[in-house]
């Protein structure tokens, strides 16, 4: 007796959101099945990989990252180099140094960097802030204005600053908006409702549902994504059908397993390998849970996850 698969194809689907312009333009989302369930139905758009580039430089990074960007002195040069990374689909520029408690790089300087990056590469661009709500809102507004027509994504609009960020980037300057919530399906939905009520079309919104490194409360990420995808697909909840973009590297490279030196933890072995594995395992878990795009830092992680996506698709 042959075994027959009962395909679980849903009538609803995840929104398709396009990022960037020209040849390198990408589309994320659009699927009507659970992550990688190609035996139920083909996946509309394969998950995409972004390369994180911090404006704070690579001095504190592991050797493999330093080596990759060797000879690059500016963010724009690193962006140009990152665009050549095998498996990279888009670039995520992070204004880490804009933190008022840190170097406090000015909004004008951030805009200058953003413009240089946009000139140096034709890859789709995502911009991440410094986690300071007021400063991020100013940066996102100014960058969204300066790069009009480039179809960028700003990560992210939060409950505290969505009015500024979503109204400027999403409405005034026609860019894409990432709605960031803290691993909770209700908060995610509420923020999507608020942002769309401002007038931003839901086709211009993606979700950052929050992330966690493997072992650091990842169960909340997994269950939030499982529930969001279930609500979007089986209950046709339009306020949860935005594709999910997950910044992985910012979480995984700051946990003990990736940070501890080899002198402190001799039995753990190479710090670089630990960091890559933490990034790879977390990214693979995010994709299996439903992320439509992940943001990574190490070239080897990008290569591995790109291969994983191709093999599973």
């Amino acid at each position, binding site marked *: *007796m*042959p*075994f027959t*698969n*009962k395909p*679980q194809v849903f009538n609803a689907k995840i929104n398709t959101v396009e990022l960037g312009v020209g040849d390198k333009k990408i589309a994320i989302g659009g699927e009507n099945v659970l992550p*990688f*369930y*190609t*035996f139920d139905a083909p996946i509309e758009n394969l998950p995409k990989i972004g390369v994180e580039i911090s404006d704070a430089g690579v001095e504190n990074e592991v050797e493999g990252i330093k080596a990759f960007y060797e000879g690059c002195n500016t963010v724009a040069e690193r962006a140009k180099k990152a665009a050549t990374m095998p498996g990279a689909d888009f670039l995520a520029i992070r204004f880490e140094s804009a933190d008022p*408690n840190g170097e406090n790089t000015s909004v004008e300087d951030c805009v200058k960097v953003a413009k240089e990056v946009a000139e140096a590469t034709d890859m789709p661009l995502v911009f991440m802030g410094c986690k300071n709500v007021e400063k991020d809102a100013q940066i996102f507004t100014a960058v969204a204005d300066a790069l009009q027509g480039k179809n960028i994504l700003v990560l992210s609009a939060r409950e505290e600053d969505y009015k500024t960020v979503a109204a400027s980037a999403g409405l005034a300057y026609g860019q894409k908006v990432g709605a960031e919530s803290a691993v909770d399906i209700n908060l995610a939905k509420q923020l999507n409702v608020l942002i769309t009520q401002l007038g931003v079309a839901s086709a211009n919104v993606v979700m950052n549902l929050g992330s966690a*490194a*493997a*072992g*650091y*409360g*990842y*169960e909340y990420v*997994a*269950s939030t994504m*499982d*529930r969001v995808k*279930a609500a979007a697909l089986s209950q046709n909840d339009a306020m949860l059908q935005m594709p999910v973009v997950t910044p992985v590297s910012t979480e*995984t490279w*700051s*946990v*003990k*397993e990736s*940070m501890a030196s080899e002198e402190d933890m001799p*039995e*753990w*072995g*190479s710090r670089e*390998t*630990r960091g*890559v*594995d*933490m990034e*790879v*395992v*977390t*990214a*693979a*878990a995010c*994709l*299996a*849970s439903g992320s439509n795009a992940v943001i990574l830092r190490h070239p*080897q*992680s990008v*290569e*591995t*996850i790109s*291969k*994983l996506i191709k*093999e*599973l*698709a």
Partner: protein
Amino acid sequence: MALKGLDIFKLTPKTNCKECGNPTCMAFAMKVAQGAIPLEKCPHMGADVIAKLSEATAPPMKVIEVGAGNNAHKLGGETVLFRHEKTLVNKNLFATKLCSCMDDAKIDELLAGVKHVDYERIGERMYCEFLSLDYADNGVDKYVALVKKAMEADRALILNVECPECAKAALEVCKDAKPILNGANASNYEEMNKVATEAGVVLGVKGANLSELFDTVTALEAAGNKNLILDVTGATIKETFANAVQVRRSCLKENNRTFGYPSIVNLTKLCAGDERMQSALASVFTLKYGSIIVMDSMSYAQALPLYGLRQNIFTDPQKPMKVAPGIYPMNGADENAPCMITVDFALTYFVVSGEVERSQKPINFLITDAGGYSVLTAWAAGKLSASSIAKFFEEQDIAGKIKNRTLIIPGKVAVLKGEIEDKLPGWNIVVGTNEAIQIPKFLKDANF
């Protein structure tokens, strides 16, 4: 499919004798249907009825027990596809591959690796639970020698053998350790079934595709063997993922009992030698339905994120993960270092301890019993209060063990400062930060 109350009622004596403790047979049947009481509570049920009913009321996915002694493990028994629907029950386990084609030096190196990675994380032992022994068709003696060597490593075993004679010889040596005999397929299952049942071990079943696997399992069940595990490894990564998902889904959603067994996913057949890819796939199969994941090896770099991920996924959503209360000296803290207190919720512990570590300041990190809740929840539930902290100080004899008299409390419970000062005279109570991320700056700026 669980039986309905009415179906069970039809099989009761219908005498309302009340001996089961319920007023009527109908009430009894309803409770059995909900799983509230076992069928055996009724003294008048015939053995045949009980057998018939327990078959029908049993969960679709069986629990399979493998290994013996310290290396005994339970696999399967899941009732839901996603942890938020209820909870996942038996965590997936990992195996390192050895082969009769390897020379002694290689085997010793791999066994040393297995022994090396063995540590504890939040009360759970993290190590590679299985050795998966491949037979390279190079002579029964070689394989038996490999089995003997593997038995010294104190791990549960998987025998990947499709030749019945070789399986028999290997089981002579190791059957008391209750290994998994992973070797039945469409052409040899009758003989392999005999070997496995005689030795009393779990039989692993393979198929060229899911239909063939289904047919072989059906035949084995008809022959009376329900002590099985399904090797769902396919020709490609894509096929293997499809197999793992479809087997589990058809069992739990369509009540396909033929596929109601745990699974083996052998990554060494899908991407041999590619350690990073194995990390990525092990992550995917931890979330999606691999019960035993076989890898070339398990280094610390792989173990740290994979075991952490598994611990996360297999926690019961209704029970928060807790760390043991006590004093955790950090950054080389001695009795002269200040104290910093927080709750026993594992996530709080990890986030706060990570930031304290980043500060590089010696701190005696105190974890108090707060029922596994986060700071604000514990405070609201009355599980983190001045009295609970005072009690914790007394029980752990903090004042006797630590000379420094500064205690930093979480910024979110600043309101407790006065009360704690009253309960702990002689201590300088300092209100810490609201968020963990502010801790390094706070500790660097302060002077205790």
